[in-house]
Structure formats: C-alpha cells, structure tokens
C-alpha cells in the first residue's frame, strides 16, 4: 500500500518552512525567487528538491544554511528560527569547496575542531567517516592530489562528520561529475546514509538522481519558486536503477514537471 503523497512522516519536523518569500535585486529589476514556499522535512528523511534551473531551489537551501535571509516568512530548525550558518547543519556545495591548504583528514576534522572537539576525538571521528566513504587511504593527501569524484566524497565526509548536525544540506553536489562517476557517488552516498542515517535535504535538477536517492521528492515550480507537488518514492533500498518501478516513478515525476512548466 502506497502512503498518501507528502504524508510519509517518520518523525518530528527538523525543518519547517512556512510562507517563505525571497526577493533580490537582479540586473533587470527585482526578482521574486521564492514566494509562498512551504516545506517540512521530518527526522531521518532523505528529501530531494527538484526543479528547473532558476526555480529558487538553491536559494531555499542557502536560507536553510543561514547564508541568505528570507524576505518574509520563517524557517524553523528543530522548532527555533535559523540565525546564520553553523555546525548544527552540514553542507555540501556544488563546487566541492574543500580547503586547499588542508589535507583530506584535516578538511573532515575542520567543523569538529571549530566546534571545540578535542584533537584526538576529532581525528577519530574524521577517520571513521573517511572509512565509510572509502577514503581512509587518502587521508593525508591534499585536495589537489585527488580526482574530482574523490574531492566530492571528501566534501560529503566533511559534512557527515558533524555529529551535532540535525540536517545535511546538499546543493547539486554531483552535478559537475560525469554520469558514470555520478552514479558511483550516489551509491557511496546512499551506502553512507544507510550506515549512519541522517536527515538530508538534497537539491538537484536530475530526476534519476532524485528517484534513486529520495524518500520524498518536492517538485518546484519557478518564478516565483514554490513547492508545487510532493511525491513519496515507495521503492525499498537498495534501489535498482533498471527496475520497472524505478522507471514508473521517474515517469511520474517527469510528467509532473512537464505539466507544471506548461502551466
């Protein structure tokens, strides 16, 4: 039995966004990037936001990260309003954004050390996470010595290491990677998530990726950006990209996106 759409809650809300609006002054006047944006994410959920370019999905992620402020409305993180960036959220950027001057393990330790962890426990935690993402051997290399895919795995590990993070934010982390490597990165991500479950907000424009990763997919409509439809993906994990139900879910989302953009 399929749960009714948008109702597959597993725990209390980690994120509760109500009536978010965001506008900014672009080169050709004011742009309403978000308006009437409502979204809830419950604990332990893997939520993907999909939508065409320029629909405001990255803007919403930035607001949750504390890197941008909504013009009106409020995002609650575990019930309290977000005030600036912090280690209670882990983030993976579209560009890996690693610190070039730190080795892999020091990149992963960074957030822990900044939040006052002792050297030894930060190292232990970082090593553990690197082990999960399969980069323990590369711990003492510098980012420039890694392949593109490895850099993104380090970026994921850096966010994942934050045990205090209620939520992991991922902004199209693998969109610049070729298709084959992207699939392997997705596999790594899901494997990590199954070993150590976290609440994830994942922004992408890739429908396949959303169907492969998400518990629930929020489809955005653009100008102004808002959640137009929420779809629960009822496929058990690990998922098979070639299974008929996978194709069915993909078709459902594709159809929905076409219907929304035609309106």
């Amino acid at each position: 039995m399929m749960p009714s759409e948008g109702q597959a809650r597993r725990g209390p809300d980690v994120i509760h966004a109500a009536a978010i609006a965001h506008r900014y002054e672009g080169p050709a006047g004011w742009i309403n990037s978000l308006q009437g944006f409502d979204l809830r994410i419950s604990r332990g959920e893997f939520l993907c936001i999909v939508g065409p370019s320029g629909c405001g999905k990255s803007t919403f992620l930035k607001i949750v990260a504390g890197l941008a402020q909504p013009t009106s409305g409020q995002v609650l993180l575990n019930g309290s309003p977000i005030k600036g960036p912090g280690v209670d959220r882990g983030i993976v950027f579209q560009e890996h954004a690693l610190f070039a001057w730190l080795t892999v393990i020091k990149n992963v330790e960074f957030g822990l050390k900044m939040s006052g962890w002792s050297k030894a426990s930060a190292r232990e935690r970082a090593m553990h996470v690197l082990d999960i993402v399969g980069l323990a051997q590369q711990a003492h290399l510098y980012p420039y010595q890694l392949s593109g895919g490895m850099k993104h795995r380090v970026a994921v590990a850096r966010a994942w290491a934050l045990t205090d993070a209620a939520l992991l934010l991922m902004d199209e982390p693998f969109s610049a990677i070729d298709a084959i490597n992207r699939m392997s990165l997705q596999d790594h991500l899901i494997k990590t998530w199954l070993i150590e479950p976290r609440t994830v907000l994942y922004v992408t424009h890739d429908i396949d990726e959303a169907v492969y990763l998400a518990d629930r997919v929020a489809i955005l409509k653009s100008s102004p950006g808002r959640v137009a439809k929420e779809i629960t993906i009822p496929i058990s994990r690990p998922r098979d990209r070639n299974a008929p139900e996978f194709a069915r879910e993909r078709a459902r989302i594709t159809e929905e996106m076409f219907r929304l953009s035609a309106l």
Partner: protein
Amino acid sequence: MSVELKEPPAIGPRQDRLPGSQPVGVIAETAGPIDSFRLYARGKRRQLARRRAFRGVVGVLVLLLLWQGMSWAFNLELILPRPLSVMTDLVKTLLILVKPWLYGPNVYVHLFDSFLRAMIGFGLAAVIGIPLGLVLGRVTTVREYVMPVVRGLYPIPGIAWIPLAILWFGLGNEAVVFVVFASAIFPMIFSTEAGAHRISPVVLDAGRCFGARGLKLLLNVILPASVPYIITGLRVGLGTAWRMVVAGEMLASPDGIGYLLVESRFQFRASDLMTVMVIVGVVGYLTEKIIIDTVEKRTIEKWDARAT
C-alpha cells in the same frame, strides 16, 4: 646539460610513505598513480632547476662581458674599474685582506648591521602589514576608512621619511629601521588586501558553515586562502626592505652597507664602491631566495602542484 628523464613509472599498488604522515602500508591502487607521478614530477622539476641555474649563470656572464667591453673601450680604471679587478677586490674584501681598510670594522660587521636592520624593518612590516591587509580586504567599514590613508601615504618615497626619521630617532638603527618599515609595509598591505578581497565566496561560506567566525575565520580560512598573494607581498616587501636599508644607511647611519657606499665615494675608490654594490645584490638575492622559497615550499607548493 642533458638529463635523462624516465617515463612515469608503471601504475600499481606500492609500499610508500606519504608526506607528513605515518607509513600507510600498501596504498590502494587509486593512490598508486598519484604517488608514481610525484616521483616523475620530481625528476622533471630537477631537470628544469638545472636548466634555470645554467641560464642564470650565462646571463650573469654576458653582463660581465659587456662590462669588460665598456671598461676596455673607455679605459677609465679609476671610475669604471674592470670586472676582474672588482672581482679581485671582492674576494680580498670577503677574505678581509684589503690593506689599508678605510671603513672601520670589517665588511661582515657592516653587512650584519644592515641585515639586522633590514630584517627587523621587514619583520615589523610583515607583522603589521599582513593582518592589516587581511582586515582591509574583508571588512568593508575598515577598508573605507583606512584605505584612502594607505593610498595617500604610499606615493611618499621611503627616502623622504629619512629627514623626519632622523629628527625623531636621531642617526642610527631606529631611523634606518623606521624607513625600511615605512617602505616595506606597502607591498604587503596591498598584496594581502587583494588576496583577502578575492577569496572565492564559496570557500568563505564553507568556513562559516563549518563553524568558523570572527578571528577563527580570519586565521583558519582567510589567512591561508590569501597565502599566494601574501607571498608576493613578502617577496616585493623583502626587496624593498633591502633597498631601503642601503638608502637609509647612506643618509642616517655611521655603519652598515650604505655607509660603506658613501664612504668609498669619499675615498674615491670606485672599485670598493662596485664591490659593495655586488655584495648588496648577491646578499639581497640570496636572502629573498632562502626566506621566500622556504615559505613557498611550506605552503603553496605543498598544497598545489601547479605552484611548483
């Protein structure tokens, strides 16, 4: 000059030790090619270094030849001594064999005085200029208040500070150190400011999201991210310091390399003058090479293969 360069070694797992780490045992296949490549790159780097040294020596020799030609053509040994006689003078000076020696303590004492003054002025300039540059690059309020002052002071030549420095500090160490400082600080402020200003926004966002703010952000993100620019500032600042220490000593000091220059002119000994100039050039070059190359090796060359 030809150096045999092997092909990059075959790819495969191998036992090795990574820089700055404990032995990691057998490195997975993914680390193999990177590591082998590093050996290959090291050979290539050495080959290039040898070529650079060779060409550098040739450049110096060509200059000496031109000089020799000029001194033959003009035949004015008294004011344009031949390179060979300057070289002889140089060796004698360095071996403290010049008789009579007209300049007080031997050349090393003068050189050490100058070196110390240059380093103290340069060090003060770095300690004040780099943090100031970082703040100017990142904090708009401070930049808008302070940058016009910095820009206004910058065109005043270091040498123009000397009379004032003499009034303030008298003849001697403090006056010279002050003019060195007042000249060397500008390249460091400007370079560091440019570097801090140009940090990729996403790297700053990453720093903030992973809990660095205020002073922590400055030390752990903004400073290291600006290092390539800071190194340029240090390089230019060190050259400036060295030039200004000589200029300062010519006017405000009873000892040091600058004093040697002025005094050899008074003694009408062009050969001594040129000897001292050669010493200034060589020591300045070596100081820069040793100090800045060390900083570079420990920072950007370690972080980024492209920097080598």
